[in-house]
């Protein structure tokens, strides 16, 4: 009687131990192995195993007293004839007290090979009634598994079902969570930040680290407001965003943010409130994408459009005043139409030169003069009447190109109509070079026509008015240029000293 009582107490203690273990472990394999160990001890058999249904087979999922090549590896086909299949099919224990006299079921050969004489099969049923598999207790000597043993095994298998079910759920949950982590951690393009209800950072995913420069260690525990620019913080944008997400569940977050190193990053994203089962806000998740490039491009485009607007108005202003100037110096409408058409052509060539420039590039002086000479049909070269002599690398200030072109255009037109480009045996030489003065680079140009038969002294030379005004008045007025315009006995002599782009000095320094 005492022996029975002791056994009962021992079995109850083992059941309680197993319950404790099962509650603390989230590993199905650990729990099943412990289940085998405890049931073997409770049944005093040294051996026990759990068989899991895998399609039409049973896998020895866990076991004690069984060789490592069997546990986790051995697959038993589930034929209808076996005791295992019968037990599962009928959802009841099947006991074989001595396999040598067993006539109901054929037994798998590995049991006999292992010296198993007696065994008990108890189905493990999951909540809902589906079978997970079997708990199998094996003894190497004949046993008389009695009713107490059978009931204990049933009880044991009954609590195993829900435990396994819970571990399945944990596994599924973990794999969803792992999938989530895997996905978001791989998404470096997206900054993902989770905060608590006070908007303090609790999760900082690698995309956030890549975007903002703070490591997870540095970011977690900080207020999410650190990501806002000082000017947004000053007007409470960070509070407004959280409050909107809290009230409406969602708040757009499309603005410049600040990185750890103080540089700015444009984020296109949103903030969403996280709620618990009762609907209480527990925190926020912020997801955004770094669209700095796109934003900068858009802002640059805005500037360019404004600049284009300005230039267009400016150009209309230039055309307007050109028309007025030309009217003042035209004999009749025919004369006006000719001169005005040529000048508009020069303005159009300037636009063409400027339009071809990349960011930071400048029109070079040689391009300008070659363009204007070509527009009046003058060939440049050893056998021609034009000599050009100067460095090719003279970057002009863009603001000066318009007026300088008009001035050169007038010089070319006059040379073609009256001077060196018209008369045989006359010659035009244009020399230029860079000088440094008052800490800035200047272009010095010498325009000299020679061999020209000039009008008699005192007679007003034709057509020089506009060109002369541009050179003597407009260039000095607009750009601080120093200029001379002299009618020598054999042709026009004109000098220009004009400030040019600072790039000119850089390039000279580089070549020195």
């Amino acid at each position, binding site marked *: 009687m005492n022996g029975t009582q002791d056994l009962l107490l021992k079995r109850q203690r083992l059941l309680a131990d197993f319950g404790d273990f099962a509650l603390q472990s989230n590993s199905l394999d650990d729990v099943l192995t412990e289940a085998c160990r405890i049931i073997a001890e409770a049944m005093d058999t040294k051996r026990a195993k759990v068989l899991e249904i895998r399609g039409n087979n049973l896998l020895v999922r866990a076991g004690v007293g069984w060789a490592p090549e069997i546990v986790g590896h051995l697959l038993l086909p589930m034929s209808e004839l076996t005791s295992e299949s019968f037990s599962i099919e009928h959802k009841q224990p099947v006991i074989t007290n001595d396999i040598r006299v067993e006539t109901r079921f054929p037994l798998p050969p590995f049991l006999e090979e292992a010296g198993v004489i007696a065994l008990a099969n108890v189905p493990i049923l999951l909540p809902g009634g589906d079978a997970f598999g079997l708990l199998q207790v094996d003894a190497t000597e004949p046993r008389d598994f009695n009713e107490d043993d059978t009931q204990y095994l049933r009880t044991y298998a009954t609590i195993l079902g829900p435990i396994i079910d819970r571990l399945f759920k944990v596994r599924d949950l973990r794999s969803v969570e792992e999938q989530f982590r895997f996905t978001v951690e791989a998404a470096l393009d997206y900054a993902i930040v989770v905060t608590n209800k006070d908007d303090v950072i609790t999760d900082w995913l690698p995309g956030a680290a890549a975007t903002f420069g703070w490591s997870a260690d540095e970011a977690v525990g900080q207020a999410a407001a650190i990501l806002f620019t000082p000017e947004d913080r000053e007007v409470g944008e960070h509070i407004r965003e959280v409050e909107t997400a809290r009230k409406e569940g969602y708040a757009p977050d499309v603005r410049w943010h600040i990185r750890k190193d103080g540089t700015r990053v444009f984020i296109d994203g949103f903030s969403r409130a996280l709620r618990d089962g009762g609907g209480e806000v527990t925190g926020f998740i912020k997801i955004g994408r770094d669209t700095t490039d796109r934003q900068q491009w858009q802002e640059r485009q805005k500037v360019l459009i*404004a600049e284009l607007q300005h230039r267009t108005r400016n150009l209309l202003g230039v055309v307007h005043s050109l028309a*007025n100037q030309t009217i003042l110096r035209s004999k009749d409408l025919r004369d006006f139409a000719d001169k005005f058409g040529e000048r508009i052509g020069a303005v159009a060539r300037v636009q063409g030169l400027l339009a071809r420039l990349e960011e930071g590039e400048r029109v070079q002086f040689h391009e300008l003069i070659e363009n204007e000479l070509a527009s009046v049909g003058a060939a440049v070269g050893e056998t021609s009447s034009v000599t050009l002599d100067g460095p090719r690398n003279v970057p002009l200030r863009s*603001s000066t190109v318009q007026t300088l072109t008009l001035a050169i255009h007038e010089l070319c037109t006059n040379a073609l109509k009256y001077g060196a480009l018209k008369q045989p045996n006359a010659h035009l030489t244009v020399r230029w070079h860079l000088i440094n003065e008052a800490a800035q680079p200047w272009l010095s140009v010498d325009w000299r026509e020679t061999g020209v038969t000039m009008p008699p002294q005192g007679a007003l030379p034709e057509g020089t008015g506009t060109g002369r005004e541009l050179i003597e*008045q407009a260039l000095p007025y607009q*750009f601080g240029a120093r200029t001379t315009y002299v009618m020598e006995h054999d042709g026009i002599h004109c000098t220009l000293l004009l400030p040019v782009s600072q790039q000119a000095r850089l390039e000279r320094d580089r070549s020195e």
Partner: protein
Amino acid sequence: MSEGIRGSKILVVEDEYYIAVELKRDLETQGAQVIGPVGSIVGALALIEASQIIDAAVLDVNLNGNDVFPVADKLVARGTRFLFASGYGSRDIPARYSHIPRIDKPYAHHELVRTVEKLLG
């Protein structure tokens, strides 16, 4: 000839030579005495220093890429009325000048005259 403009001293700040020349001619046609024209901020500030009386000023907003606002501030300080002429629209004019009259470039002759008359009015 405009009665409102005749005899008044008007500062012209404009960097485009031809526009400056026309502005001067337009104002002189109305009987004004033009101070300038001048095309740089430094030059404009010096002219303001040197001129005891300036009744009004016409300021081009952009002088070779520089904002004319230091000149505007100096005129505000001495209580001189002025107008902005701008090819930019109002975008680049700070809010503190929102009460300053403005004409958009290119402007018609009569538009300029009317706005200057109002300034002097």
